[in-house]
Each structure stands twice: as C-alpha cells, then as structure tokens.
C-alpha cells in the first residue's frame, strides 16, 4: 500500500485517509437524521400556499392596523394601546403589520376570532385560507384525494381526471407517487406520518368550495376525514 499510493506519496495517503468512506461512528446518526427529515420536510406546493396565506394575513393585519390608527385619532382605544400609539407618534408602517398584532391584544380585527390559541406560527394558522382558497381552489383537495385513493385501491373506480387531477398535481408537485404521499398526509392515512405543523393550514377548511360530482366510494365520510385532518 505504501508503494502503490498516489503519486504524492505520504501526502496522497493523508488525503486519501481524510476522504475515506464513512466509518460506523460517523454514520450512527442516520435514524435521527431520517426522523428529522420526516418532520421537517415540507412539500413544495405548501410553500406557495403558505406564502399566499401569509400575504392574506399581512393584508388583513394591515387593514386592522389602519383601523386602529383611525380609532386612535378619535380616541376610542383602551388606554394602554392609546398610549403606545401616542408614544410612537406615527402609526406603524404596513411592513411591520404582520408582527404588530401581538402587541395590540385589544385590537378588534377579523383575525382575532379565528386565531386558534397557542398556535406557534401566526402567518400559517391565523386565518383560514379563505383568500387563497377562493382565488385558486374550485376543487376540494380532500375530495380529489379520496377519489385518487379510491382509484388506487380499486381499479374499477373512476380515475381522477380534469381539474381534480390538475389540482393534485399542483399541490403534490406531480406524479403518482407524489400525489399518493400528499394524499396520505392530507388524509392522515400513512401510519408512519405523525401530524406535523405543516398540516395545520388545511386547504379545505372553509368548506366553501363548490364540489364537483362525488367520485369517491360512499363509505368515505367527508366530515370524519376532515376531523382527522384537523386534529
């Protein structure tokens, strides 16, 4: 080995040693790393949705802050809020709107009634994704997923096509496997997946989407499944 080493002699050996394949103790953390991946991974489609939700929340917050500033000028605010605004002179800039509602607990805003207590991520959970859903969601992902999974389980069931299929592709990133995983996560089917924070802003929450012909098997009860997703 000494004689057949790289041309650089001892230096070559040193470099080979530094780049040697992983040793058992270096690979001991695999299970933890994979568990971390399962928890932290966020499908790409969610990012777009989250940004939309965040924008919607920011917009709502900006409106409510504007209302607060207006109310402050007529002196209709509780004393602490009034003094806080008075200290700062100028009303808060819209760019800080997303953060400020926490400092204004008494502000009556559309978000106040719908925010679940103790939620960790205000931008993701503060508002039901009504804005984004209304803008881009004529198809209910839950229904589409039921139809998709029904078809996977039973080849005689009608395949998912048209708008439903497009929506599933969009949400999952595309491909049978991705859709399957997305639907498993959405409906809480997969036994290995514990609910993660990414699941809280469920797109079907508003329940306003006009649903196309139901294709899933009658045994699927929509409300029950919705419940499991929300838990």
């Amino acid at each position, binding site marked *: 080995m000494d004689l057949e080493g790289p041309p650089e002699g001892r230096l070559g050996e*040193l470099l080979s040693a*530094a780049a040697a394949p992983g*040793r058992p103790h270096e690979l001991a953390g695999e299970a933890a*790393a994979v568990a*971390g991946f399962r928890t*932290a991974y966020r499908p790409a489609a969610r990012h777009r949705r989250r940004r939309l939700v965040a924008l919607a929340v920011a917009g709502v917050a900006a409106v409510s802050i504007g209302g607060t500033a207006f109310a402050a000028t007529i002196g209709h605010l509780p004393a602490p809020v009034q003094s806080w605004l008075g200290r700062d002179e100028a009303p808060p800039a819209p760019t800080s709107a997303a953060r400020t509602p926490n400092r204004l607990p008494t502000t009556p805003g559309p978000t106040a009634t719908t925010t679940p207590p103790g939620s960790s991520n205000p931008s993701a959970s503060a508002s039901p994704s009504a804005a984004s859903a209304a803008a881009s969601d004529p198809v209910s992902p839950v229904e589409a997923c039921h139809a998709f999974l029904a078809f996977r389980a039973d080849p005689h069931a009608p395949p998912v096509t048209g708008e439903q299929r497009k929506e599933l592709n969009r949400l999952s990133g595309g491909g049978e496997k991705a859709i399957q*995983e997305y639907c498993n996560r959405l409906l809480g089917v997969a036994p290995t997946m514990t609910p993660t924070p990414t699941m809280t802003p469920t797109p079907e929450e508003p329940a306003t989407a006009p649903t196309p012909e139901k294709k899933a098997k009658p045994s699927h009860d929509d409300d029950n499944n919705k419940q499991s997703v929300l838990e």
Partner: protein
Amino acid sequence: MTASVQGLRDEDLADALAAAIEGDSASFAVLWRCLHPFVLRYLRVVCGDAAEDVASETWLQVSRDLSRFRGTATAFRVWLFRIARHRGIDENRRAWRRHEEPHDAIDQLRAAAIERDVAADVVELHETDRAVRLIATLPREQAEAVMLRVVAGLDVAGTARVLGKRSGAVRIATMRGLRRLAEHPEVRAHTDEDDEDGP
C-alpha cells in the same frame, strides 16, 4: 485529489436526490449516508467539537428546504456544504459570545485544549481523524479549500461558490494548503519512517 477518491459519484446520487426532493425518506437516507461523513469532517475544520451538532442542524435545514431545491447532484453538494459552512460560522459566533462573558473562560479553554492534545498523543487516532486534524492546523482559508476540494470532492467552481471566493483564490489556497501539508513535520516524519521500514 478527485471525487473518485471517495467513490462518490454524482450519477449515483441523482436518483436518490430526485426522490428525496419528492419527500421519500429512504432516498434521503441514501444521500445522508453518502455525504454526512464528509460534511462532518469538513465541519471539524470549520467549528471543531461543535461539528456533530452543526451537521445535524445542517441536515435539518436541508430537509426543510429540499422540496424547493432544483439542480443536479453536483449542485446539491455545493448547496449542502454552503449550508454547513453558514451554520458552522453561526456556531462559531455563538461560541465566541459564550466565551467572552466569563472572565476565566479563556483559561478554561486553553486548559481544555492542552488536555485534548495530550489525549490525542496518548490515544492512537484513526488515520482519517489524524488526517483531518492535520488539515485543520492549516490557515483557515487553506484548510477549508483543501477539505472541500479533496474530502467533499467539489471542483474549483463549486468550492468557490461554497466559500464565496473567486476560482483563482480557491486554486491558490488549495495549492498552498497542500504544499504546507507536505512540509508538515508529521507528514515528513512518516515519510522518513516509511523509508527506514521499507524493504
């Protein structure tokens, strides 16, 4: 001095990468097994004993952002080591702040360092650890360039992107680092021993 040293080919990683981007955890495990040892060794050079923790943070960030990653396996490795480097630098800043506060911290640090050196002399280190330790004694810029080129198997352009430097600077740092390593007493001592023990 090439990626082939570690038997790590990007075409082997491409499939695993594509599936991991889709959320497949088994494929993520493949990426991790292939690349984690080198991330860990690189981080030993960047942030010493914090390497394990920082490597974990690095993979968590990769997990979180992977679905948005678009690129080849080569680009993925560049991305991975960039994240590792930034995390390592953050950790160094935190450690610096921690150690600035108490008065006798520096003495404690120094004592710990001496202890470690003694331990290293007594316990026979695996040659891989010894090699990484030796590379870590180089000036920081050279050490990182050598680790990224040789251990991580990145090319000059990829290394330059990780380090935020120009390719020319990477070439020079690597060359100087290797030259310095070749002149290192430990490397020369071994060469002499080999000569004496040789047939």
